[in-house]
């Protein structure tokens, strides 16, 4: 053992012995206290070196000395516990950190059948030598037998760090048992005390505006998706201070937690994210959110408590139920909506007056816009026609605005017109004129469509039609000349005569979308 340590222990033992003697002189006898017994450590030390036998003799001598003391100082005979020959069992939870200027409590637990001497805490400034430890005896707990602790004085905690170890003996001199050692001590880092920093109170009339603002989100909500198909969700995110953390938050209907699906920039302010096909198994709910680069936000389209509903339907068109009138309101759309699963090609047949009827091919580039083109027939002849239809709603009964234009390439109005005149030349000229009736037309109608815009609609329309026909100048001249009674007169219609007009019109028909 190190001489310095030996000296310290010896000094401590003497100190305890003196204290015990003073106590025995001043106080009546009491029950023996192992901790108050003078340690036999120095003797034990010698005895350890010379053998147990000699040690036991010296112990008996000591007892004899005690027994020869004055009667008042005679101590009751303490129960003699046989030396177990084992050092105390010492357990210690290392203390890793302390607070500067605050006492540091170090605790240990030590037990031994012969009683524990100490334990002694040896502490030094971090980095000093092995001879610089300061011994401090740990105090036994009055509550839990075997528990010991000591507060390292605050004055020693004004360092950058401490190092310590603990050493314990039993009262029979067995030991030491150590936690740590002088060579390998346990380190304690001394940290500054963490204090709550009180922010200065700002004047109430000062508004602190964070830099930047959340981006603005423009998003056309989806309402339907096909089961087992990926669902692409697009949004336009515009922010003066950039866009960051754009995501589609989605969940299955009925679930509590949302899953985040990051949105990727696809050019300009447009962002997209695709819900995987594997997730499109049942109805979904989602919303879109984004921050700016300063973390302002989130800006949202939809919200966690008010998400967009996305009905997931079977991929088979036949399984798609026709929209019921009661559900029309929930499927209301705006012109900004996109719907990629809508049928886009179909046929239409209509008829009306005075424009006649037609068979058309329909193409729907957007759900709210239809293009049509096809044949026109008005009993008098055939022609062609084309047009557009705006249907700004997707209801069971949807209003429409329809504009058509076309031209009849042939026509014989003699089927419908009877010319009664006594002048056969006039009749003949008129019939010739009527047999070549061609005209152009343009029609504007408003209407109502009944049924599913996805598959079949029946419609009625009404509006105005403009027509324009050119009557041959030669044939008109022939008509006029046939009525000319004076051979000295000559008619000449130099140019074609234009016959035009605006008339009310009405039509009805149906559209069937097949693809």
């Amino acid at each position, binding site marked *: 053992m190190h001489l310095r340590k030996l000296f310290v222990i010896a000094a401590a033992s003497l100190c305890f012995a003196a204290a015990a003697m003073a106590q025995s002189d001043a106080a009546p006898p009491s029950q023996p206290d192992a901790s108050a017994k003078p340690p036999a450590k120095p003797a034990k030390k010698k005895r350890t070196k010379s053998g147990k036998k000699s040690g036991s003799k010296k112990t008996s001598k000591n007892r004899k000395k005690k027994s020869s003391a004055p009667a008042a100082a005679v101590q009751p005979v303490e129960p003699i516990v046989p030396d177990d020959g084992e050092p105390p069992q010492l357990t210690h939870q290392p203390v890793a950190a302390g607070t500067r200027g605050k006492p540091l409590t170090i605790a240990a637990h030590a037990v031994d059948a012969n009683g524990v001497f100490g334990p002694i805490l040896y502490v030094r400034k971090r980095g000093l030598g092995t001879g610089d430890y300061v011994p401090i005896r740990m105090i036994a707990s009055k509550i839990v037998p075997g528990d010991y602790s000591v507060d390292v004085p605050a004055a020693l905690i004004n360092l950058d760090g401490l190092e310590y170890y603990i050493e314990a003996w039993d009262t029979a001199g067995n030991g030491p048992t150590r936690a740590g050692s002088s060579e390998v001590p346990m380190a304690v880092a001394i940290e500054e005390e963490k204090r709550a920093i009180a922010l200065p109170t700002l004047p109430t009339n000062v508004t602190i505006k964070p830099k930047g603002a959340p981006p603005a989100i423009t998003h056309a909500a989806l309402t339907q998706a096909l089961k087992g198909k990926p669902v692409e969700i697009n949004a336009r995110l515009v922010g003066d201070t950039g866009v960051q953390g754009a995501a589609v938050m989605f969940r299955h209907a009925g679930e509590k937690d949302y899953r985040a699906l990051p949105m990727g920039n696809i050019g300009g302010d447009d962002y997209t994210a695709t819900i995987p096909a594997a997730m499109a198994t049942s109805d979904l709910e989602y919303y879109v959110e984004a921050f700016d680069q300063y973390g302002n936000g989130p800006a949202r389209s939809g919200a966690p408590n008010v998400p967009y509903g996305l009905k997931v339907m079977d991929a088979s068109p036949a399984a798609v139920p026709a929209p019921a009138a009661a559900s029309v309101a929930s499927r209301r759309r705006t012109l900004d909506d996109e719907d990629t699963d809508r049928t886009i090609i179909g046929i239409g047949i209509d008829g009306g007056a005075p424009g006649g009827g037609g068979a058309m091919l329909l193409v729907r580039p957007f759900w709210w816009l239809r293009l049509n083109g096809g044949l026109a027939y008005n009993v008098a002849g055939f022609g062609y026609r084309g047009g557009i239809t705006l249907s700004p709603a997707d209801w069971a009964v949807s209003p429409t605005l329809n504009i058509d234009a076309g031209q009849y390439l042939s026509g014989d109005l003699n089927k419908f017109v009877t010319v009664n005149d006594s002048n056969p030349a006039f009749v003949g000229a008129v019939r010739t004129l009527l047999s070549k009736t061609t005209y152009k037309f343009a029609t504007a109608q408003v209407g109502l469509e009944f049924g599913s815009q996805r598959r079949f609609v029946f419609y009625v329309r*009404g509006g*105005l039609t403009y027509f324009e026909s050119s*009557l041959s*100048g030669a044939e*008109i001249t022939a008509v*006029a000349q046939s*009525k*000319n*009674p*004076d*051979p*000295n*007169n*000559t*008619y*000449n*219609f*130099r*140019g*074609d*005569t*234009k*016959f*035009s*007009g*605006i*008339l*009310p019109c009405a039509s009805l028909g149906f559209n069937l979308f097949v693809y």
Partner: protein
Amino acid sequence: MRNLKAISLLLLPLFGCFAQLENPDIALSHNLCGGTANCMPGALPLGLMQISGQNTFTVDFGDQPLLQPSTAVGPATVNTSLILGGAGIQLQNAASGDFSQVATISLLAAPSATTDCSATGSNCTVLADYDRARDGAANQSITLRGRGVDLITFISSTSHSMNLQLQASGTGPSGAWNADVSMDMGLKARANFP
């Protein structure tokens, strides 16, 4: 009252509707002498140009459809206008000379088909006129500038004819002559609903 409202609603789509026939370039020419004869004496100072001893000559349009100022056709009323845009006098025989000595010439319309213009034409309406100082000297033909008169009011609804008169100054062609008088008209017949 309720029926009136219902009828008004039913007729509402018809407002603004129309059908229209128009030709801005119709020519009707009339031979003054009838045939190839040169009924007009040559080298005479021009004044009232009498045809066959009459102050006026008659042009029969014939019973043409739409040549009525106003005609009811079903719910529509057809209004017709026949605007004279100009007139011309075309010499039929080049051997007769030319119209280079003609100073002025006017085409007038009598108020009705049963009325003749006076010798001075004071009771008639000038339809078109020529002024050599304004329009330049003429040769084989004279072009008269129209005054935008609607001829339809001068055409008899029964005889379908109108009486015209030619008043001129200067000197006519050197030889006896004949000419076609042509009228360039714009026809517009419009049926408005209701």
